[in-house]
């Protein structure tokens, strides 16, 4: 037991002396949490639209006013031929084309129906998709206005189903509320995993591990001496992150803070175990860095931060069950946004405990003092 204390004393001394690690732990989370949620935004604004108006009627003008007034679109071209509009798309000056056919108003009034043509530049999938949807909404609103114009005297409007959606847990569909807990999860993972892996490999590179290996220090002492400091640092990063998301984004965890910490404590053990395991396979910090990067990329992109795991193909969904980051992102969103309790996350806690035991077990097994 005394040995562990000495090891910890040494480890903390080295960490506090290493200014770049201190900066990494204290400044990086704050900056990333300030930058990323502001920049990474799903809301699409400023969709460039080019309109080909072949009708020049009051209805077509009404439609165009509706589109430009919606705030989502920027009218970059008002043209008279499809060809001219297409060249705008080719020059990347337009994302959407709306063609209003000749006789739009006349046909609408006379026949009660008319078609519009919309062409979408789908290179930027999200922008095209959402732009198309927005345009549909704006046109539908314009359509309703026209109907009201044409048929005020009819007794009772034609039957129509209208949907009203209430957004629970994030009523304003604020994108940041959704992203901040996820980004915090990634930060904790990165700092915990990378620092542990690099630290042990650094001892290998410097040869200090040789010197440790000829001492009576036991294997589990050494590993605990490495785990505990980075576990503490992980908690520091997490706490900083919670403070930032509260002060800057006003995100107050709905659920119990203690529960969140409880989950993070287990999660950190799993991630640190992973870092340890990687370090036992590597001889240089460069190797460790690239291997960690490889896994963290997969963990992050398949962990449901940007794209929901539910919409992934089945094999990816199965794979994401072996990804600790998936669990953390889920639980963070559940507890912070929804106020889930212990009962709701107990299963995930169990899985992570298993991860922690297996990963650390493998790391201890694979860390050989004698080759």
């Amino acid at each position, binding site marked *: 037991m*005394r040995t562990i204390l*000495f090891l910890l004393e040494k480890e903390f001394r080295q960490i506090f002396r*290493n200014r770049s690690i201190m900066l990494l732990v204290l400044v990086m989370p704050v900056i990333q949490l300030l930058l990323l949620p502001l920049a990474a935004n799903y809301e699409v604004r400023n969709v460039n639209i080019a309109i080909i108006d072949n009708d020049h009627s009051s209805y077509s003008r009404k439609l165009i006013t509706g589109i430009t007034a919606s705030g989502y679109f920027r009218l970059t071209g008002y043209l008279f031929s499809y060809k001219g509009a297409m060249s705008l798309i080719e020059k990347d000056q337009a994302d959407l084309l709306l063609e209003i056919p000749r006789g739009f108003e006349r046909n609408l009034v006379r026949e009660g129906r008319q078609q519009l043509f919309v062409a979408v530049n789908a290179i930027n999938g999200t922008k095209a998709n959402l732009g198309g949807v927005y345009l549909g909404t704006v046109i539908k609103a314009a359509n309703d206005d026209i109907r009201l114009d044409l048929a005020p005297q009819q007794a009772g409007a034609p039957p129509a189903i209208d949907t009203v959606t209430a957004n629970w847990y994030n009523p304003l569909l604020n994108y940041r509320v959704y992203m901040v807990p996820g980004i915090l999860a990634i930060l904790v993972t990165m700092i915990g995993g990378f620092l542990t892996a690099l630290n042990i490999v650094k001892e290998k590179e*410097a*040869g200090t591990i040789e*010197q440790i290996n*000829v001492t009576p220090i036991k294997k589990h002492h050494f590993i605990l001496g490495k785990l505990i400091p980075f576990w503490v640092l992980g908690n520091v990063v997490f706490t900083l992150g919670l403070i930032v998301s509260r002060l800057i984004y006003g995100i107050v965890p709905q659920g119990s803070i203690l529960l969140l910490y409880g989950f993070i404590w287990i999660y950190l053990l799993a991630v640190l175990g992973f870092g340890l395991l990687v370090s036992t396979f590597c001889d240089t910090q460069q190797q460790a860095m690239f291997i960690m990067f490889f896994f963290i990329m997969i963990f992050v992109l398949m962990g449901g931060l940007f794209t929901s795991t539910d919409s992934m193909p089945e094999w990816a969904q199965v794979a994401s069950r072996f990804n600790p980051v998936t669990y953390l992102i889920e639980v963070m969103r559940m507890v912070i946004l929804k106020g889930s309790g212990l009962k709701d996350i107990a299963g995930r806690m169990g899985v992570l405990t298993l991860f922690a035991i297996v990963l650390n077990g493998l790391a201890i097994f694979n860390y050989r*003092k004698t*080759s």
Partner: protein
Amino acid sequence: MEAVRTTHLKKTYHGKTAVDEVSLTIEQGELFGLIGPDGAGKTSIFRMLTTLLLPDGGAAAVDGLDVVKDYRQIRKRVGYMPGKFSLYPDLSVEENLNFFATVFNTTVAANYTLIKDIYVQLEPFKKRRAGKLSGGMKQKLALCCALIHKPTVLFLDEPTTGVDPVSRKEFWEMLQQLKAQHITILVSTPYMDEASLCDKVALIQQGKILSVDTPAAIVASYPQPLYAARANEMHQLLKALQQSADVRSSYGFGEFAHVSFKDTDIDIASFETILAKKGLTDIEIRPTPVTIEDCFIERLNSQA
């Protein structure tokens, strides 16, 4: 009981034999030198004896404890100083020393007498980070750290490689002092001149022990009188010596050529005239004391 004993110790790396059936016995309190060129297998032997490497064959015991079975016990009582500086460069001199004392469950104060003579030289720099010390100071600190738990056997792997001549001399003086404290020391070095400072040396080449004896006995066992030769054209001289039928062995040795003859009673003066006929001038051939290096070359030649 011997401090170190190996019997037919063997280590292979990917089918290449690094240590080949090495049998050594080192008595307690001995200053034992393992002398051989780079790649001879010295470090592999050290790593097996300090339980960092598992032997592929044979057995080894340190203080009567088996290096495979009793590795935990061995780690408590040996001191090891690897060839490469491997203390924490971001900890200070003092902190390194304290750390290694505590992991061996002791304190610096408890064994201060052992390191006192070395540590006084480090004391002015005790707040300095180990990574910022000069090469010689690093060696001294590493020696202190290897000694701080009062080991019974001290393993020093090439402690003087890359160290300036003055520090090398100081280092060997420190080893003599430690010997006086009854610590068994096994030291490896590629420098032949350091061999004579040991109680006993083993000459090692390509994983094989060529001979084990006291430096004096090794030197005495040299079979022939040895001569040092010099002439105006050293390159010509060496060539002439190699071609001569009378010469048993010849090789360059510093500014001289060392020569031994097939006929131990050869007339040096007449040999000189033979050389003079080949156009060499200023020829000088005189008897010279045998060094360990001569013995090493002799063993290599007789093996080949």
